[in-house]
């Protein structure tokens, strides 16, 4: 290639004129147009005309602005209706379980943060619950209160962001998500003050919590919690009776209670289908039996009910938070008898579960008496809630499938693990 003069380089940089040594821009070889369409269209067997009854295979994802992370749906469309939908995942498989088996029990706690990266505190708690069951350790009273407070704050954070993302999927670009993230910033500020990190809190330990909350932190939390219903009212004014939201969500993505139970769906998804099952009531862990709260239940099991359940759950969470912040006692936050370093639980197995914002989050641990877990298994709610995606989407249009996926509330870190 010949050397270019500076002027030619300049012209080339500005995209003007014939600086290329191969010839002027117009002479560059023009690629022939592709021979056929870039999608795959197959005629239905037995259809009369060639164009009639054609089906179209579309791969939605893994890079798609609405798939909530790197998730792919292989969709077969007849016209605009979905006749088959296969979820494909594994694009964010990060070997959580194997990595946790390779380290000590304490070393697994930061990995649990990164499972469902919206709700690191409930993930911590579920894991710590399993280890405490395995080793027979108990947490002090104040730590139990702090766990409830942080877990319910996490629920507020998760549900408000979820509603924002759901509306984003519906085409309401910006406003609801901005409102939700405004509230999220208030909550992550509290987490940052308490734990030192905005998202990856790494806060709970076997037999308590890592740091104590100051009186000032509790006061600021009270203020945020007292203000939260105002945000909920504002959000509901904007959304709950919004005509577009009603048209897009009512009757879309119906899930029957029977199918939901058979598929093992848990959390707000199950309650929206009319099954009153909440682990905080059904098998209370921590100190949840001390608090008065209700479990909202839906009627139809459609996207609107799933949206509404989350709104109502946030109000119940505010109720729990107010009680917990009033009753929180003084005292230590770590059980001095609980060992964290050189920790060897006795041989045995344990399953710790709790009501995470997305459903039943469980950790199943087998100990062989060594400092490392022999088996570390995560029951991820969003993975199991995703298995019935096809049943909910069949017969709907592709744009409805996007909001049905949004209403399932998945986080790929947890689905792929």
């Amino acid at each position, binding site marked *: *290639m010949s050397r*270019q003069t*500076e002027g030619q*380089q*300049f012209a*080339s*940089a*500005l995209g003007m004129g014939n600086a*290329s*040594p191969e010839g002027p821009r117009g002479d560059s070889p023009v690629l022939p147009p592709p021979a056929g369409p870039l999608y795959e269209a197959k005629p239905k067997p037995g259809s009369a005309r060639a164009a009639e009854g054609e089906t179209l295979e579309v791969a939605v994802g*893994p*890079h*798609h*602005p609405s798939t909530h*992370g*790197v998730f792919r749906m292989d969709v077969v469309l007849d016209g605009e209706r979905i006749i088959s939908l296969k979820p494909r995942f*594994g*694009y*964010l*498989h*990060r*070997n959580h379980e*194997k*990595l946790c088996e*390779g380290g000590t029990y304490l070393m697994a706690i*930061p*990995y649990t943060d*990164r499972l469902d*990266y*919206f709700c690191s505190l409930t993930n911590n708690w579920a894991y710590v619950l399993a280890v405490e069951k395995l080793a027979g350790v108990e947490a002090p009273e104040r730590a139990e209160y702090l766990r409830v407070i942080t877990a319910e704050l996490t629920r507020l954070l998760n549900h408000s962001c979820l509603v924002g993302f759901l509306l984003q999927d519906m085409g309401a670009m910006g406003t609801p*998500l*901005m409102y939700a*993230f*405004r509230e*999220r*910033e208030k909550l992550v500020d509290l987490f940052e003050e308490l734990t030192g990190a*905005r*998202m*990856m809190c790494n806060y709970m330990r076997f037999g308590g919590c890592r740091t104590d909350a100051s009186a000032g932190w509790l006061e600021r939390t009270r203020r945020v919690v007292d203000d939260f219903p105002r945000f909920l009212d504002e959000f509901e004014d904007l959304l709950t009776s919004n005509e577009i939201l009603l048209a897009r969500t009512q009757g879309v993505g119906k899930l029957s209670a029977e199918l939901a139970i058979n598929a093992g769906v848990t959390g707000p998804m199950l309650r929206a289908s009319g099954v009153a099952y909440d682990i905080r009531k059904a098998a209370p862990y921590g100190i949840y039996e001390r608090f008065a709260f209700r479990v909202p239940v839906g009627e139809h099991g459609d996207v609107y009910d799933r949206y509404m359940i989350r709104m109502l759950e946030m109000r119940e969470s505010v109720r729990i938070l107010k009680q917990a912040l009033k009753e929180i006692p003084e005292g230590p936050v770590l059980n001095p008898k609980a060992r964290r370093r050189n920790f060897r639980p006795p041989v045995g197995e344990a399953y710790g579960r709790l009501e995470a914002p997305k459903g039943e989050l469980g950790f199943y641990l087998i100990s062989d008496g060594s400092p490392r877990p022999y088996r570390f298994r995560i029951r991820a709610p969003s993975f199991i809630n995703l298995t019935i995606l096809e049943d909910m989407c069949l017969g709907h249009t592709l744009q409805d499938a996007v909001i049905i996926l949004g209403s399932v509330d998945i986080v*790929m*870190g947890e689905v792929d693990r």
Partner: protein
Amino acid sequence: MVEEGLRNELSRQNIFLTSIQELYNWGRRNSLWPLNFGLACCAIEMIAASMARFDIARFGAEVFRPSPRQADLMIVAGTVTKKMAPMVVRLYNQMPEPKYVIAMGACAISGGPFKRGYNVLKGIDRYIPVDVYIPGCPPRPEALLHGLITLQRKIAGERLTGPERPRHLRELEPSEYPIPAYGPYDLDPPKNTELWHPKPFVRDA
């Protein structure tokens, strides 16, 4: 070049002097359009950076484009697994020149906490050239903004001519990089040796 004092004096007389290079870099660095592309945890902080509190729009980079054809900044926000790496490289190849890459978070830089895993790519710079690295797990939105400003400074210092031209102005430099395939054991090739030159680790005697 006009000296600074004369230029200031002229600007007081409503005469503005500039060079095409400065104008060109000024325009480009203040309207970076990032690709709307989240991989994992860091994507949440990237979204937080684009929301009202941190407001990435102050730096002209709020127009998140869903299509790589319209974007000129790729923020690799999160863990790149070996299943996802070919898609990341393909998205990079589809972006028009000039294009820049920010590796956001420990995972995109080196694999981060998941480096020991069998399915995690140990740094996206093995396949595509990275301009700015932002450490953190995840980096705070302020750190992302700092990374963006660092990239803007880098663009401001680019020369349009001469031997110090950036990659996209050199005819012999590729604008597309080979896409790795998902082989039986590992990605094939496991790294782009023409691109990836880690500094040898020298232990003190």
